[in-house]
């Protein structure tokens, strides 16, 4: 069975539970953590590659735990024509992938730091952030 990629979002109170352990132990899934941003007492995000026959059961378990589960999209790009470098995305972006260079106050997007949480997509007033499937 081909590996599947998913994007997970944890609330702050879920970030200290051994959720990945349960996926491996109880559902016999092979987990490859591609990206993770998990900190105590903070909302966390994770990108997983999962292989195993009990994939759907594993996802149901995650949802029962209140973890947000979405299929992984390829990535986020910035439409440079539309972006006005206002900065409204920068305090929303959880990983600092969208950040302000000071003192110029220019807004940059460092794709390597993007965990594809998509919070910027709707928070951008210019609709400059785009999803690539």
């Amino acid at each position, binding site marked *: 069975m081909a590996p599947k990629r998913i994007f997970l979002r944890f609330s702050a109170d879920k970030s200290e539970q051994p959720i990945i352990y349960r996926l491996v132990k109880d559902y016999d899934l092979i987990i490859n953590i591609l990206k993770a941003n998990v900190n105590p007492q903070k909302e966390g995000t994770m990108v997983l590659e999962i292989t195993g026959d009990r994939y759907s059961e594993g996802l149901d378990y995650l949802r029962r735990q209140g973890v947000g589960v979405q299929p992984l999209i390829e990535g986020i790009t910035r439409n440079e024509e539309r972006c*006005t*470098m*206002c*900065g409204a*995305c920068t*305090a*929303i972006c959880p990983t600092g992938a969208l950040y302000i260079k000071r003192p110029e*106050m220019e807004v940059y997007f460092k794709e390597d730091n993007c965990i594809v949480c998509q919070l910027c997509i*709707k928070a951008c007033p210019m609709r400059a952030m785009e999803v690539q499937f």
Partner: protein
Amino acid sequence: MSAQKTYAEINAKIKAGKAVVVTAEELIALVEEKGLSKAAREVDVVTTGTFSPMCSSGVFLNFGHPAPRIKMHRVWLNDVPAYTGIAAVDAYLGAAEVPENDPLNRHHPGEFRYGGGHVIQELVERKPIRLRATAYGTDCYPRRELNTTITLDDINEAILFNPRNAYQNYNCAVNLSSRTIYTYLGVLKPNLGNAHYSTAGQLSPLLKDPHFQTIGLGTRIFLGGGIGYVAWHGTQHFPAIQKDETGRELGPAGGTLAVIGDLKQMSARWLRGTSYLGYGATLSVGIGVPIPVLNESIARWAAAKDSDLYAPVVDYGEAYPNRIPGTLGYVSYAELKSGKITVLGKEVPTAPVSSYPLAREIAQILKSWIQEGKFLLTEPVQLLPSPADGLKPKVLG
């Protein structure tokens, strides 16, 4: 040479290609280098800029008459309604108007992907716009329905008239509640998760002329990439100098401008349809105002730095929506631009919703227009109310 100058003297220098024009940022550096008196003598004009969402914007349109003629009773441009309670083929399209079938906030937060501001941007881009109108029919205007496509070049007039733009200062918005809120200052995370502010600080036009010594009716400005004029003071124009509890001055707040200009000579780079999640559609507008350095006092105000200018920190979770007075303190634009402020003892990340890079570009463009002799200054027909007039907002009963 005295720092006293007249509009006529400055314009003569502009025509001769000899005027000394600097942006507000450059003036700050010049004052630090040479001192206020010398800088005030040397500089003729200071240029400012701002690029922000400005909801109180819109365009008066005259479509011209079809044959047979029509007295438009209802009109829609790309399904966005415009106001037609004026003459037969005149309408006013407001930036914050949305299509009648927009889901609004029924599934909160609504996206507001398209509205009047987006139509204005597409008009300026010369894109075809669907025009639909209905009418009740009169003897002189018998037609009852119209469905056609227009572009900006096809219609008689398109006059951008924005009743309230270029807000002098704005709240720094935070959220003390325990849920994410969706405001006109962007998405505010719960429990002081972030702080949003919205002016260009030391570049912003009305922060540089707090006593309205130069900006008035007829002041020629950069508007949406073209030439515009200050038409009046804006709605809710309550200019004041902020003070803390000890009486220390914290820079100006409360002034606004009503501006006007021919949309046909503007550019979509400086007029952009904008969507605020959970709040609404609007238009981002680029405005630049030249400030003539008529005397040293004007230069001193125009040289105010980010560290001299302050924004009140206000809770948008509870206090602001319910009109509970008071603030959570004041923070300077220097602090806001550093990326973090301290509110109620907690460090809070800051972000602007107004583009500083585009504000800087506007100030540079206006500077080059003046240096090239393409843009002369106008002496106001009448100055606007200043903090000395003590205008105060009313509370609706």
